[in-house]
């Protein structure tokens, strides 16, 4: 039952509550980096990795330092500052560690790392995990699902985009405007997933 519950959170995050196409988080990298398939995959993997790490770091801090269950003190108003600083530090740390110990991975993901600090999906997923009252395991699963959902959206859209780029459009629609219209159609197709998770997992 517990595994089913986790699986339901995981797939909901990928298909139904897709961060990019349904919740509008991380639109900038979605529009900026989805031109080529390999950079789309690289960016999404880096995002997924940082999301899981950031959730693993921020959840205990929120639960034990900012708003402890004992109610001894309430520093909840510091959440925004503390979380964004943790994410910034984490990204910097990750960049240094990868550079030093896993240069191959650094080469693949390195260029995307500085962009990730200001990627709203990361801060979004950490704050939403707290808002939804998830426990630690659920939060991690939710972060992984959100990251993979980002990957799915990026990969799908890089395909759509290649076709759109070849199309002849009115002059003022060239470039980004027509890309956004294409994103609307992609997002429309994700609306079809609504309710599917509930019926599969019975959650």
């Amino acid at each position, binding site marked *: 039952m517990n595994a089913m519950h986790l699986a339901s959170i995981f797939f909901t995050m990928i298909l139904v509550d897709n961060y990019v196409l349904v919740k509008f988080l991380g639109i900038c990298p979605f529009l*900026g980096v989805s031109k080529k398939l390999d950079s789309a995959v690289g960016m999404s993997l880096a995002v997924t990795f940082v999301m899981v790490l950031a959730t693993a770091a921020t959840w205990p801090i929120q639960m034990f330092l900012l708003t402890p269950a004992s109610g001894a003190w309430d520093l909840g108003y510091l959440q925004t500052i503390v979380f964004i600083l943790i994410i910034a530090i984490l990204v910097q740390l990750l960049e240094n560690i990868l550079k030093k110990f896993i240069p191959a991975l650094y080469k693949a993901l390195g260029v995307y790392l500085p962009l990730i600090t200001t990627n709203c999906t990361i801060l979004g997923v950490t704050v939403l995990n707290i808002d939804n009252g998830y426990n630690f395991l659920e939060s991690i699963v939710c972060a992984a699902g959100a990251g993979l959902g980002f990957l799915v959206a990026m990969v799908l859209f890089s395909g759509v985009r290649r076709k759109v780029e070849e199309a002849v459009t009115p002059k*003022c629609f060239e470039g*980004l405007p027509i890309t956004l219209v294409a994103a609307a159609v992609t997002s429309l197709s994700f609306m079809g997933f609504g309710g599917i998770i509930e019926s599969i997992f019975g959650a």
Partner: protein
Amino acid sequence: MSNKPSKLKILTNGILNENPVLRLVLGTCPTLATSTMASNGIGMGLAATFVLLCSNIVISALRKVIPDQVRIPCYITVIAGFVSVVQMLVKAFVPALDSALGVYLPLIVVNCIILGRAEMFASKNGVFDSALDGIGMGIGFTITLTLMGTIREILGSGTWMSGLDGLFPFLPDGFAIQVLPESIDPFTIMTSAPGGFFVFGVMMAAATWLTTRPKKEKTSAPAETAEGGNA
């Protein structure tokens, strides 16, 4: 931009020519997410304007003190401080807006308009100019959000400015202007995600058309700025 732009030019720059959303393509996430209703657009725009103005002033005042290598963490800390202030104020005085904006209120921290203006303008210009730039960009952002919210709300639910009573307590409860007659079924897809992308695309095309119509050879400008945009 020329070397000595006039004060008025700085202020009006953000409204059309360098409109943060439609021309610089910054801050797209809150634009799409909070423009389901015109009143949410106004609320989000004003909150972001406040943060933009305050952070521009502080960052430009500290621009000679902050070391170059650690400027981004410094900027983020300043911005996060002001966002927390806004969060507390909104929670205390306009709870309706707090529940309407939800997670997008703390996400003003990573709104790239604010960090972008800190990096591009406030770190290079004086306090007064930076304040003007903050106000101009904020107004441009608010106008765009309100306009987009208006289009989506009228097409998607047939009303205009519903929920404004949450922002301004002197309005009667349940305030809304019925624009489309009730006999016309609202086009609900407009208030959900696909409608957001679609309206945004069309508005961006309109802005491109408006700003590049007199001059030629500049149609590809927004696509290029999008490349540099992150977050």
